[in-house]
């Protein structure tokens, strides 16, 4: 194969998903928000649903997520994406509605909204980025910050006596009857990214089939605010986050379990 062959469309093995806009993101080098975005876009492409999809962006580093997807989008107040998604989905039940939220957004200020959207079994999909920190505001402690982890607002390390313990959202949501699918995956290496993609696909398929609330939690990096270089950040996820936030399927309803992709 010569170079010109490689450039031919039929030989192309990797390209920008159609559900992605042709702009570079504002994310820091090594941040896995970009990977998570791409996985969602690939899934929308594969399912052919971009034209009927409405995304709900959060407040956090992914506040501008709407710039990157070739779908209709709204931008919610901090933590309120699940409520906004509820409003949209109730009026447009045939559309695909997803929120994309960070851990501060979803597990702190938006705790009530995420719990109740799940309790109602709202037929939406949530992509939950858990990077154990508040990225956008410059690295403060999040509800998911690990015990002992230093942040700008836990400078001596998270002291669980004073600042409590990290919250495991997937496990909590799995207890709810309205939830069809609640799983945790990680973005720290290609094998895990593949699994994450499959989970995202399953979550959107669950929504398409009307099987209730679906959420994929993705362990993610924040090299800038962790103060760890991008490569070591990936390793840090595996070494430090996975033990606290075990990967796995916490709820797969029987109907979702029957989905074959």
């Amino acid at each position, binding site marked *: 194969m010569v170079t010109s062959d490689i450039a031919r469309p039929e030989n192309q093995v990797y390209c920008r998903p159609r559900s992605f806009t042709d702009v570079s993101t504002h994310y820091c080098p090594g941040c896995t928000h970009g990977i998570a975005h791409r996985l969602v876009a690939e899934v929308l492409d594969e399912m052919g649903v971009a034209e009927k999809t409405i995304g709900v962006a959060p407040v956090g580093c992914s506040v501008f997520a*709407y710039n990157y997807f070739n779908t*209709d989008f*709204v931008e919610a107040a901090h933590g309120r994406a699940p409520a*906004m998604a509820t409003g*949209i989905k109730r*009026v447009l039940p045939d559309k*695909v509605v997803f929120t994309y939220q960070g851990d501060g957004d979803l597990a702190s200020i938006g705790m009530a*909204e995420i719990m109740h959207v799940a309790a109602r079994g709202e037929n939406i999909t949530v992509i939950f980025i858990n990077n154990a920190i508040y990225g956008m505001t410059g690295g403060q402690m999040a509800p998911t910050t690990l015990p002992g982890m230093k942040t700008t607002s836990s400078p001596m390390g998270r002291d669980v006596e004073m600042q409590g313990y990290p919250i495991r959202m997937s496990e909590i949501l799995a207890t709810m009857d309205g939830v069809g699918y609640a799983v945790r995956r990680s973005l720290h290496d290609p094998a895990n990214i593949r699994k994450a993609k499959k989970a995202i696909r399953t979550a959107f398929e669950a929504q398409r089939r009307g099987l209730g609330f679906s959420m994929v939690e993705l362990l993610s990096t924040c090299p800038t605010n962790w103060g760890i270089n991008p490569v070591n950040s990936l390793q840090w996820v595996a070494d430090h986050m996975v033990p606290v936030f075990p990967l796995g399927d916490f709820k797969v309803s029987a109907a979702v379990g029957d989905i074959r992709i």
Partner: protein
Amino acid sequence: MPRELLKGNEAIAEAAIRVGLEAYFGYPITPQTEILEHLSRRLPELGRAFVQAESEVAAINMVYGAACTGARVMSSSSSPGVSLMMEGISYIAGTEIPVVLVNIMRGGPGLGNIAPAQGDYFQAVYGGGHGDYKPIVLAPSTVQEAIDMTVMSFDLAEKYRTICMIIADGSIGQLMEPAELPEMRPIQRQNWDWAVNGTGGRQRRILSSIYIEPKDEEIANLRMLKRWQEIQKNEIRFKEYYTDNADFVVVGFGSAGRIALSAVRAARHQGIKVGLFRPITVSPFPFAQLEELSKRVQGLLVVEMNMGQMLQDVQLAVKGNTPVEFYGRPGGVVPFPDEILHEIQRVATSKLSLDADPRMSWLDRATAK
């Protein structure tokens, strides 16, 4: 449609349905709960969306999402709940989408009580949430007006892509009186060129309240002000009673205005040449009309079920042309017509000053008793 004996809250709810309400999101709170209860039965029966939200914070954000699709949506609450909604209200204002809200006001601040009050005038008229925006605010004084304003509020909200809020106090929400509902209209979701409903192949649309570049936010702010200018030009509504030959005029909105009308009529019987000016749009406020009026009278008496909030707008309107007096019953106390009649008599017979602070003079009189 026939006239029926209708409760204010239920009349508002049913009127909204008749003009195509597609979705309602709310949280129970006295004295507005009948709106939520009525809609919890009627909307599902009609195949439309009803959600009892986990809080007013969630309710307003559900409204925000649903309104982004271009559907006719609303929420309702009472004072403490409306305070919780302020975050979402500001976002909705910043996104420039139409939303109808109802505040059946009660005594406050804080948890206050569940009695009728008008203490949320400032919050409603001056926006309440953060940032620079002005909602349209309507103040009904009867169940019939509450119905008519509900009908009108959807049209106004959509015409100007703005929030239209109805502020009624608990007595209008709870009162039963004969009124006529509009006829049932089919839902006609407009094909708005801003609505977010899936691209279906068209250019994607984004609805957000973010303008990260201050210059862009400034442009958005000015666009909203321009629209407000239009609203002020086109939408001011008020009612005048016996003002043609009046020496004195009472100014009151909602229930206070209605009760004042009884007092005005009684005073007329006694030969006092008094009229009533009742703003229907408290925002936009009828500044020019009141200014005109202030040039022809010997004094104004502002009556409110609060400590003098609209009073400030009246003072702004009359520009010192005529003395302004105040009588208020805050905290959930509803004034009797006799009390207002007594005030009218006082105003008509005493030497009024242009310099006195009407609120402080009222406080002195009230605490002296």
